[in-house]
Structure formats: C-alpha cells, structure tokens
C-alpha cells in the first residue's frame, strides 16, 4: 500500500465521551489512524466504539456528547474547529455515509428519486431536469434495471437490497472523496449482500474514493478491505493488512476469527473469547 503524501483523513487521539447520570462514558478512547484513497475496515463487536468513530468523522455525534482529538482533519481542513455551516457543505458533498438499514435511514415520505435530487440540489447549482438525469444515471450505476420506475417509488415499496442500492446511489451522486459505510449489508439477505458489496466495490474503485467500512464481521471486512483496524472497548487493539489476517497477534482478533462456525470444521464446543480485563486498559 503506497500512502499518498497527504492523507485524505487524519485522526489522532480521537475521544468521544457521553455524560451520563453515573459519570462519563468514553465510547471512543484515543483512536488514531490516517486514511488515503484506500479501503479501510474497522471491526469490533457492539459497544467497541466503531460506529461512534465513523459518526464523529461524519459529524453526526449527538449534541450532548463531547468530542476531543489532537487532530481530526479532512485533507487540510480541521473538522474540530470548522463552523457547522461549512461542515454541512462537506457532508454529503465530500464525505458521505451509508447506514445499515434502508428501512430506517431513507425518508419514508419522499420518493427515492426526490431524495437523490434533493442531495444534488443542496450541494450543486443544477437545474431540476439535469438533476433528474444525474439521479437516473446513478440509479443505473448501482445496477437498478428500471431506474425510471424506482425513481418514483417510495422506500417502503422496494426490497431491502434495492433500498440499499438506492442509498448507495444517493450517497455517491455528488461524487464524495470519502465514503463511510456503517454495516452496509448487515440487514440484507446473504445472497443480496454479495451483489450490494460488488456494486459498492466497483464504484469505490472506479471513482478512487477513500472508504471506511465498519462492520462486526471480521471475515467480510478482510475480504473487502486493504487494511483492517480491530477495535475493543473504544481502542484500537490491532491494525494489520487484510491479507495477513491469519498472522493476527492480539488474542481478541484471533478469538474473533476462531469463534465463527464454518462448514466442514467439526469443533464442539466452539472456542469462545476469554476476555481479559487488560485488553480494555
């Protein structure tokens, strides 16, 4: 992996803290990485802080939470001190995010086409007819065979796989440089998952985007990404090239790899994670 001189995204010592009645809860505790135009996977189980890391980069952390970092920069631009207005310009135009479940993350009272056109009109000075043409072309790019029809459908009228393709189209229509995909296929059927991943993979490669792929599925991430970060209790416990997953050193990573039942391996009982308190230190 050759790193470009200037990384697309720099994260140094990122911390996300939620104040609660019983004291502060640190969801992310000092995460650092740099991202070029590459595919980076972030893996961890629920509560590991992987989604909060993505949301902090995107600027979608809930208002009462506290974000601190030594550096959080998109290119040369400091995301921490950036005014909200500028951040809104960035979001959707240069940084986009695909969420887990199209059932809940698309606007239920707007047609799919109108939602894509809305994105375009927010970020570009573009006529309605030109925006519609771009939206239709984008729907075609995510391999929707009848874009005209899907354009005028509401989210509840399409299947999960179709909804997720529509979301990918919506997120990529402005040509972002960085895409954050938070569990983009977990809500889909296994056979549909592969189709959606295939589409995502081709678009990311063709457009030379940086991708952060957040998932709980270590195997999936390692087959999709160039580099994998493994998170546990808000920290990075291991970072390694996806191809060298078998050489993982940290017992947590090894445990995650081992505990999956696979066809043809006869292991009864399955090995389980023996969580050591020092992992969370």
């Amino acid at each position, binding site marked *: 992996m050759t790193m470009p001189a200037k990384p697309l995204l720099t994260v140094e010592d990122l911390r996300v803290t939620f104040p609660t009645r019983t004291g502060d809860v640190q969801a992310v505790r000092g995460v650092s990485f740099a991202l070029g135009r590459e595919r980076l996977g972030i893996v961890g*189980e*629920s509560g590991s802080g992987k989604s909060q890391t993505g949301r902090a980069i995107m600027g979608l952390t809930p208002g009462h939470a506290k974000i601190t970092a030594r550096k959080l920069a998109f290119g040369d631009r400091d995301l921490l001190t950036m005014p909200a207005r500028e951040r809104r310009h960035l979001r959707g135009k240069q940084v986009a995010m695909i969420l887990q479940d199209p059932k809940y993350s698309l606007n239920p009272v707007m047609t799919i086409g109108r939602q894509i056109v809305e994105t375009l009109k927010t970020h570009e000075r573009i006529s309605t007819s030109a925006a519609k043409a771009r939206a239709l072309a984008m729907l075609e790019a995510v391999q929707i065979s009848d874009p005209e029809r899907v354009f005028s459908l509401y989210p509840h009228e399409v299947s*999960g796989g179709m909804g997720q393709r529509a979301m990918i189209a919506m997120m990529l229509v402005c040509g972002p440089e960085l895409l954050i995909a938070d569990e983009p296929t977990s809500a889909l*059927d*296994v*056979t*549909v*998952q*592969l189709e959606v*991943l*295939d589409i995502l*993979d081709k678009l990311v490669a063709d457009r030379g985007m940086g991708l952060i792929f957040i998932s*709980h*599925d*270590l*195997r*999936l991430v390692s*087959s*999709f990404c160039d580099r994998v970060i493994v998170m546990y209790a808000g920290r990075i416990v291991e970072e390694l090239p996806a191809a060298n997953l078998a050489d993982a050193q940290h017992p947590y990573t090894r*445990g*995650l790899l081992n*505990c*999956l*039942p*696979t*066809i*043809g391996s006869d*292991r*009864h*009982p*399955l*090995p*389980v*994670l023996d969580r050591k308190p020092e992992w969370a230190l």
Partner: protein
Amino acid sequence: MTSALSIRDMVVTYDEFAALDHVSFDIGTGESFGIVGESGSGKSTLLRAVSGLVSFEQGTLSVNGRPYSGRKRDKEFYRTVQMVFQDPYGSLHPRQTVDRLLLEPLVIHGFTDIETRINRALDEVGLGTGFRFRYSHQLSGGQRQRIAIARALIVEPKILLLDEPTSALDASIQAEILNLLEQARRDRNLTFVMVSHDLGVISHMCERLAVMKTGKVVETVPRKALENREFSAEYTRQLLVASEGFRRG
C-alpha cells in the same frame, strides 16, 4: 428412529400469498434439524405454524404421535414444545423481572418446587442467581438470550424450536449461545428444529438440514453433503457461495 415431529403437506397462506406451500418433514427424537433460507422463504412461518402462533389451513402436524390442527394447542403441547425467538430485545416482557419471566411458565404448568427450579434454570444457562431480580433492560443481548433459553427449558420440554437464536448477537456471543444450546441438548436429549440464514451455524448445529425458498423445500440433505458439496439444487450452491464471503471478481 421414531418421529418427534411430523409435518405433512403443511400450507399457510396470508390472504392470497402462500407462505408455506405443501411442506413436509419428519424429525426424529433427539435429532437436530436445520432449516436455511432467505427472508420470505417461509422458514420462520414454519416454526410459527408448528407452535400455533399462526394457523395452517391444510396438512397435518403430529408431535410424538399426537395430531394437532389449526392453531389450537393444549397445555401438554407446550410442555413438550418450546420456542426461542430471534430478537432477545423483543421477546422478553420489559416490565417483568427475570424472576417473574421464569415464574410464569412454572405456574401455568403447575410446578411446585418453584424456588429450586428458577435457581437451577439460571445456573444452567450460566447466569447465576444474581440475575434473578433484574429487568431485561439491565441485561446485554447475550444475557437476554440466555434468559429466553432458560424460560424455554424450565418446563422441561422435549422439542425446542429455535428461530434464528443468534443472528442478533455478536460473533463472540454467538459461539457462547451455540455452545450452551448444544450442552442443553446433550444433557436433556432434546430435539432441535433450528432456523437460520447462516449455513455455517446450521452445519455446526444440525445433522440434517432443509433448504427453503419461496415457501417450498428445495432439498433436504445431511450435514456431510454440504462439506462434500453433494447437493443437487442450484439455490443451495448459491447459498453456500454466499456464506463463503465476498470475492473480488
């Protein structure tokens, strides 16, 4: 091998839509039988029809030789057959403590040694009596699923219907729950009917499995056939390829 559960030509329709289309199975006593398929294949509907949560219009169902029809089930049925659901967040009463959740089946079925049974059930699923007076929102997903399993096992059933028991859980927690289920099956000589979309999980847990698609059984194969790829249906192959993960091509 005697049949613990026998289903013949079962049909379930929702309005005009056939969710189950002439499905037949015979599941032996002590067997662990898996059903795989995607959403809409009818795999969950099958379990719901067996347990009486939905009514079936045609076909027959018999449990240990006793016939049942429609959705009417007697107490004896629920002593024999219990179910564990997919979503541990949705299947426990939010305003009942664990103690109350476990008490209810015992009262319904007229058990007397309630104290010892509740404590033993909690121990068996690896939680311990410290959890007895908690509410379900005070538990993690894995702990909730353990409570759901304890609730199913507490009336000492013979057949356990498992509807995606681990798909809402993290991989590491999934392994713990699968081990717990296997242990319970060994200790009590249970019959399992397990539904999942994950071929890996089904081939780990079950000796025989059926592949379902659009309300029909595509094929029924032993576990070995998956390893050796000795199956005939194209759809089974697609599922198997999908379960092996993403390949750049």
